[in-house]
């Protein structure tokens, strides 16, 4: 047989202990680097706050919970941007499309539907969401069609889209802010009631850990069945422990963030509960926007790794001619990829406008830059063919952490922009160095 022996990967004596660990667990160094950078940013901001301002506010349940909510909108779109960039395109329009879609949903649920269905009808939020997703998808598909079938570079199509959709959003509502959105709709944006609470979080925690373990066991079985090389057992245990530990830590953090006093007394009054002397501790738990983002990330990861669609995305990015010669309909794929980007932008518009409980004319402004930066910081190569969903999510956390952290320690907007800009350029430079070395 031509295979390497199962244990060879961990037994190479020429490697140091760290390299051996990485090789056996198959954790890629890039992922490690990103996690390291994120942790460094978190600790850095916390210490800076603690030392300079006498108040380390970053590593608190409250801030981390807020961070998770704030990251969701950009994170959801970054998942789609990964596909766009892998196939050597770009989408500069997502911020404007988000603004436009949110405006459409706002009009549907505030101006139109209540007249027909009555205020607070449970169908309102469902219809509004469907309309938003549909509009987003249609806009994306249209962009994709212009790129694929009319041969206009994506840069130009979406640069035009950036102006057109922002302008269209203004015209739709003549510049007015549309609020308040439907009460159920608003839950999709987070907030004390837009989270699943302590019990819900623990249930999700258990489900997540069980799924992780099941995936590792069945993955190992499949490798064994085909006689492919296996990871050493200790590496499997380490990986399982790390993954489940992470889920557990996240659960503990979101459960440690209680509802504010005002909300608690409001809730207690509404449910005839007497608040005890020391106050009631009601946990937020995982916020719904975060859960939406995680669900999107999981679905997209499966799609990229385990379906034809994902395989074709990578193939087109690696060599568009080869993909075409292999019988892949690369034009139709481009339309689908842009449509998916539009769908995710619509989803993100739901989260973003629900969080604000309004649709404003400036919603989503500059988001395209944060989304592209998230994808690129997460290791998506602008040369095409390379990129991961988890990387983009991490990238979104990095971008949002920088933004939040600078607000917390009192940097003004000008400095924030300078830092974010520098980080983006630096991230691409590091990526180039990394790829040179890997060759």
């Amino acid at each position, binding site marked *: 047989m*031509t295979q390497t022996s199962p244990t060879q990967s961990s037994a190479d004596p020429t490697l140091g202990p760290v390299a051996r660990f990485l090789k056996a667990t198959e954790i890629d160094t890039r992922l490690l680097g990103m996690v390291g950078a994120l942790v460094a940013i978190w600790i850095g901001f916390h210490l800076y706050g603690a030392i300079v301002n006498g108040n380390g506010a970053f590593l608190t349940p409250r801030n981390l919970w807020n961070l998770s909510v704030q990251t969701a909108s950009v994170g959801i779109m970054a998942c789609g941007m990964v596909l766009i960039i892998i196939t050597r395109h770009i989408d500069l329009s997502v911020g404007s499309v988000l603004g436009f879609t949110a405006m459409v949903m706002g009009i549907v649920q505030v101006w139109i539907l209540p007249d027909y269905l009555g205020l607070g009808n449970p169908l309102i939020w469902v219809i509004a969401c469907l309309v938003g997703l549909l509009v987003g998808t249609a806009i994306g598909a249209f962009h994709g069609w212009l790129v694929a079938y009319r041969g206009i570079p994506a840069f130009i199509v979406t640069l035009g889209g950036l102006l057109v959709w922002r302008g269209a959003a203004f015209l739709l509502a003549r510049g007015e802010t549309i609020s308040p959105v439907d009460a159920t709709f608003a839950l999709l944006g987070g907030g004390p009631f837009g989270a699943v609470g302590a019990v819900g979080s623990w249930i999700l925690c258990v489900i997540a850990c069980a799924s992780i373990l099941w995936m590792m066991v069945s993955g190992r079985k499949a490798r064994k069945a085909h006689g492919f090389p296996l990871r050493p057992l200790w590496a499997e245990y380490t990986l399982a422990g790390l993954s489940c530990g992470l889920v557990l830590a996240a659960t503990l953090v979101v459960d440690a963030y209680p509802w504010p006093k005002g909300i608690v007394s409001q809730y207690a009054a509404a449910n005839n509960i007497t608040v005890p002397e020391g106050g009631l501790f009601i946990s937020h738990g995982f916020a719904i926007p975060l859960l939406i983002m995680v669900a999107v990330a999981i679905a997209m990861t499966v799609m990229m790794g385990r*379906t*034809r669609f994902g395989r074709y995305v990578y*193939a087109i990015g690696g060599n568009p001619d080869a*993909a075409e*010669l292999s*019988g*892949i309909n690369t034009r139709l794929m481009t339309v689908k990829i842009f449509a998916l980007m539009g769908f995710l932008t619509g989803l993100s518009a739901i989260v973003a406008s629900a969080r604000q409980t309004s649709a404003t004319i400036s919603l989503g402004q500059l988001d395209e830059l944060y989304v592209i930066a998230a994808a690129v910081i997460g290791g998506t190569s602008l040369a095409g063919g390379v990129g991961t969903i988890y990387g983009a999510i991490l990238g979104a956390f990095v971008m949002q952490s920088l933004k939040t952290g600078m607000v917390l320690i009192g940097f003004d907007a000008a400095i924030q922009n300078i830092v974010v800009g520098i980080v983006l350029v630096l991230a691409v430079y590091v990526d180039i160095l990394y790829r040179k070395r890997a060759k």
Partner: protein
Amino acid sequence: MNKNGTPLVEMRDISISFGGIKAVDHVTVDLYPGEVVGLLGHNGAGKSTLIKCLSGAYRPDSGDIFINGQKAVIENPRDARSFNIETIYQTLALADNLDAASNLFLGRELVGAGGFLNDAEMEAETRKIMGRLNPNFRKFNVPVSALSGGQRQSVAIARAVYFNAKILIMDEPTAALGPHETQMVAELIQELKKQGLGIFLIEHDIHAVMELCDRAVVMKNGQRVGTVNVNEVTDDDILGMIILGKKPPQAY
């Protein structure tokens, strides 16, 4: 080889030009089952362009293609594949960022329950066929960009022969191979020929042409100089056709 029946492939009066350059100029070629037809000519003669009309990469400006005597409409590579036409391109046409198995099955992935890719099965199949074509091949889990020229070429060859082609197009299949691997490809061609495939072989090495091909079609400046039965001519006759465009009396 039976040349009295209908040809497997007939490309009739094919022309295609790119911005004024007549890359292929009224060329007619045919191919019978179990036959190897060599396509010869200098660089730029139009060989690759001609076969790309058959593989669906290009659409000819004029001319018709017949498969088993039936007029065939080949508008894209998917159409060509549906006629059991497989191609090894001169450029290999591999997605560099994907591994050997993903390239081998690109566009024709094996899927299991729920439409999910069956990567394990694809890798196992790839190991099988590579074991036959290139037993030294080990690099199954790395992107093909990490492979040597010869290894990449063997992946491209494996992809063309895996799917039970009836018509095989090989555009300089041994360009990146060493002498030993070249010999293996020669044996592979003989074997496929025995199985009744028709093969278009673009090849520069005149000795390989004399050894492997039944007929040779020589092209120059997009035009067909002539076609010869290889056993009726010397290699000098063929070289004369390639270099001078001189047609020997046996040619037609």
